[in-house]
């Protein structure tokens, strides 16, 4: 009998998501995952099948987390705005990294990413054109990652059009 699982799968997927969001898929080695997640190599393979298997799990977990946070919120735009200006690494970053790094080469990952973007569009539709609004907010997220202070812009973008309505 194989040794039973002795780790918290949800927590492991969450830390993997953060690592992938920070560095991307290719730059994270199994050595990195074993070191950061505190899971034995063989357990990692037994549980997730492969690095890509774990990556897909992380991507799907982030998407599910996003949509339940959106569903539960009184003001989902405010949550989205907070994610855009956040100093930490979050779900949006994983989506952006996945879109850039894996999107063209991996249809399964591309489907997750475009699905997640469509869910964001449904929220940002409150600002007018959902797709364009999501694009603006994701663009602001990129600027934030590059070190720009985008807080005022993000507030204005989500606030101003709201008062116009």
């Amino acid at each position, binding site marked *: *009998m*194989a*040794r039973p699982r002795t780790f918290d799968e949800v927590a492991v997927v969450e830390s993997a998501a953060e690592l992938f969001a920070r560095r991307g898929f290719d730059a994270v*080695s*199994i*050595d990195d995952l*074993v070191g950061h997640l505190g899971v034995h*190599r*063989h357990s990692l*393979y*037994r549980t*997730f*099948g*492969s*690095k*890509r*298997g774990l990556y*897909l799990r992380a991507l799907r977990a982030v998407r599910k987390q996003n949509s339940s946070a959106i569903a539960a919120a009184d003001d989902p735009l405010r949550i989205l705005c907070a994610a855009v200006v956040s100093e930490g690494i979050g779900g949006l970053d994983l989506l952006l990294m996945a879109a850039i790094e894996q999107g063209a080469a991996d249809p*399964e990952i591309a489907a997750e990413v475009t699905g997640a973007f469509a869910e964001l569009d449904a929220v940002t539709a409150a600002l007018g054109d959902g797709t364009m609004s999501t694009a603006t907010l994701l663009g602001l997220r990129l600027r934030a990652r590059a070190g720009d202070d985008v807080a005022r812009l993000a507030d204005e973008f989500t606030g101003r059009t709201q008062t116009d309505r």
Partner: protein
Amino acid sequence: MAEVSIDGTDLVVRMAGLDKLWALKSRLVIPLANVRGATVDPGIIKERKGIRAPGTHLPRVITAGTFHIDGERVFWDVRDPDKAVVIELADERYARLVVQVDNPADVVGMIEKACAR
């Protein structure tokens, strides 16, 4: 070194040249339905390998054959760890295969695509 290919609904792993001897196995055929994924993993060579039976283990030269670890059977055929690929299986004699291939990224892409989940 191993050659990995897909033949219909099977994954075929063929040991090349003398590796047949060291690994005591020339060919493995696994239904794709039992393949869970593949990963490029140069670091796995530094892991504990477990008990070898049967096969060959000359550290830093070749790791080949069947190894028992944590109640699992792992098949190894690796000389150059930079080209090591881990293929995870389910419901098979081996829990996973660790084999050296010529073009690790291509082999991993091919397997991951074939066993899409």
